[in-house]
């Protein structure tokens, strides 16, 4: 047992990123799988616990990033990780009352959620405060638990992509891609046709733009910058309309299917390029203005800092990791679809780790996305006709698939038996990153909270599946 953990810890020490720990019931026994990401691949270390085992030595004391993963295992499989520091419910709905215990005298708990002000997803932050500072904070995510993993097991492998699109609605395309990549790997399918690969990139990058603009809207709104909030809101609406015109869904649903894409965009490549050109000019100008507004930047600078060592240790994903100098972008390190053939351009180079750096990363990614979108639309206009999907008949097997969402890497661990899904564990970027929320409140006060939350920009739906 400890042999496996030593192996995992050694691999992380050697530079691999801990990408997840998942359980699979195999008859009477529970199989634990640790996923480790490196350039080019995601490898899996597996261990079958003895049948009827009720506990195992915890990984968390050796590797802190397993903290939530082991709590989830405990919730869903009833297995106790011995030595885990805090084994409270994470995924399954539990206590609604505010805990009576606080860390120190003079503190009280503000229970912020699950129904919060504004239009937000349900999550509860238990903020311990003496009045202004936030010395400690706990997150309860279980309110939205929907039983997604079990629901996957009722579906045929070909239908799973429909549910994958609904795991995290704002990252529908990324989830559909990660799921489809896993399914394609099991089926041993041929590479998707070139046009399909380009259409996948188009939709994935448009989704990224929309998500980054959403963060800009929230940050500007938190700062009371009304004109900027309105401007970015309009840009976001226009991009969503473009996506809707291309495929019929404002969230790009129904485009990605295992083996390729379902149809050509209903908007010609030339029209897409024209609209993108206009959008890029408008967004770039407004972004520049926002980054020149001192009262706005003051709220972001040094707010919610994540130390680079912690980001690297945890393997922080997406903009949260990149803003702290930890860059693992699946589009570059484990590229898929049309990404290997397209130029990603300059990667974001930031170290500061505060809310400002996270916003800078997003603007850099917006620039990258437009760069990719232009190339993809150009290529699509010139691409020869042909089928949009290859045959992808999923029989039996197990595979991991991934895609880079706007929030970070999405991972799917998919098992199928005779064309039926037997286990599917989506791992969203939110699940991996949100636990870092505990650690970024050094010196920040209650009014910084909306900025820090918006700068993380993590959808809640993907946390407690």
């Amino acid at each position, binding site marked *: 047992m400890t042999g496996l953990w030593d192996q995992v810890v050694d691999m992380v020490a050697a530079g691999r990123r801990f990408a997840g720990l998942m359980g699979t019931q195999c008859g009477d026994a529970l199989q634990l799988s640790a996923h480790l990401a490196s350039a080019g691949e995601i490898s899996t270390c597996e261990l079958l616990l003895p049948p009827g085992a009720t506990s195992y030595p915890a990984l968390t004391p050796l590797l802190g990033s397993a903290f939530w993963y082991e709590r989830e295992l405990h919730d869903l499989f009833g297995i106790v990780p011995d030595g885990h520091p805090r084994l409270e419910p994470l995924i399954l709905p539990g206590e609604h009352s505010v805990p009576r215990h606080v860390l120190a005298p003079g503190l009280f708990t503000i229970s912020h959620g699950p129904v919060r002000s504004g239009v937000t997803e349900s999550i509860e932050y238990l903020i311990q405060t003496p009045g202004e500072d936030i010395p400690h904070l706990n997150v309860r995510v279980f309110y939205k638990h929907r039983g997604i993993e079990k629901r996957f097991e009722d579906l045929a492998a070909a239908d799973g992509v*429909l549910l994958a699109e609904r795991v995290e*609605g704002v990252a529908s395309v990324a989830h559909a891609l990660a799921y489809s990549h896993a399914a394609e790997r099991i089926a041993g399918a041929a590479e998707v046709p070139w046009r399909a690969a380009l259409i996948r990139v188009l939709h994935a990058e448009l989704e990224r733009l929309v998500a980054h603009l*959403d963060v800009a809207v929230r940050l500007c709104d938190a700062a009371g910058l009304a004109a900027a909030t*309105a401007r970015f809101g*309009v840009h976001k*609406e226009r991009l969503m309309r473009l996506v809707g015109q291309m495929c019929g869904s404002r969230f790009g649903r129904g485009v990605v299917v295992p083996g390729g894409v379902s149809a050509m965009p209903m908007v010609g490549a030339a029209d897409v390029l024209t609209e993108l050109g206009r959008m890029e000019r408008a967004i770039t100008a407004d972004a520049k203005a926002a980054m020149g507004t001192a009262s706005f930047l003051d709220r972001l600078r040094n707010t919610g800092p994540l130390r680079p060592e912690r980001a690297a240790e945890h393997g922080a994903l997406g903009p949260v990791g990149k803003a702290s100098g930890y860059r693992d972008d699946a589009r570059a390190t484990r590229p898929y679809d049309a990404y290997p053939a397209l130029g990603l351009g300059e990667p974001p180079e930031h170290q500061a780790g505060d809310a400002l750096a996270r916003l800078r990363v997003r603007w850099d990614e917006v620039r990258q996305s437009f760069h990719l979108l232009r190339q993809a639309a150009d290529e699509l206009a010139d691409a020869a006709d042909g089928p949009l999907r290859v045959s992808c008949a999923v029989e039996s097997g197990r595979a991991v698939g991934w895609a880079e969402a706007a929030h970070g890497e999405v991972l799917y661990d998919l098992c199928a038996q005779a064309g039926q899904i037997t286990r599917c564990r989506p791992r969203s970027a939110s699940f991996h990153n949100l636990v870092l929320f505990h650690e970024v409140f050094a010196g920040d006060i209650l009014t910084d909270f909306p900025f820090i939350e918006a700068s993380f920009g993590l959808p809640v739906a993907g946390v407690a599946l």
Partner: protein
Amino acid sequence: MIPWVLRGLRDGVVTTSWPAGSDPYFDDWRGPVTIVGQGPQDHADLAAICPTGAIADRPGGGVAVDRGRCILCARCVRERPDLFGWSRGAATADLTRAGLVVPEITETSDSLAAVRAALAARTRALRRSVHVRHVDCGSDGSDEQEIAALLNPVYDIARLGMFFTASPRHADVLLATGAGAHGMAEPLRRTYDGMPEPKIVIAVGTDAVSGGLLAGSYATSGGIGAVVPVDLWVPGSPPPPFAILHALLAALGKLPAGREAAGREAESGRP
């Protein structure tokens, strides 16, 4: 650098003129699936097409689609274009759950008028300043984005006297999204109980109406109707901002004459 105030004036008025005027984005919206023909049918096969069981036999022959279960996956439209097609327009909300089934089975126009009159009587006091509270009961997060879009300058619901509020004590309308996760049942009930009378509940999205793909999950109650009484049902996965705006105005009886139609009438006359 141009100051924000000038920057804000750059594009002129971007706000829609709907509902006073018409908006092509509203009218041309690709709505939920509808029945376009009653060709030769093999019902066992038809029901198997739909991943959420929205296709069923119609009593008295033919086939029916429950839009409250439809997740717009387009499978039926692709496989049987002779039977299924898209409806047009964002006026998708309905006053009754059964009214989401097309072609209509149970409702008569008399009973529908009675429901509408009862709702209008309750909401008479709410017309000029309406405060809206949203509760997420296990959505996938997309419904929230579409509701939040109502605040952007394109839809700008403040121009219609509608505002989002944090406190249920100030709220007149409850927008509930999500499949009815068990963890949110208690917070939803407490929010509902905290609202003063009269109050209106709108189920936003196919998940909230029926549970959608998660209808049979151990962790959801198959829509929010199992927890609180629902006045208006808005199908869609997710419904676009215009459909939510239409539902809000329909609930308050604020749709201008000629636009009262909720869903089914809007569709009639169009193929």
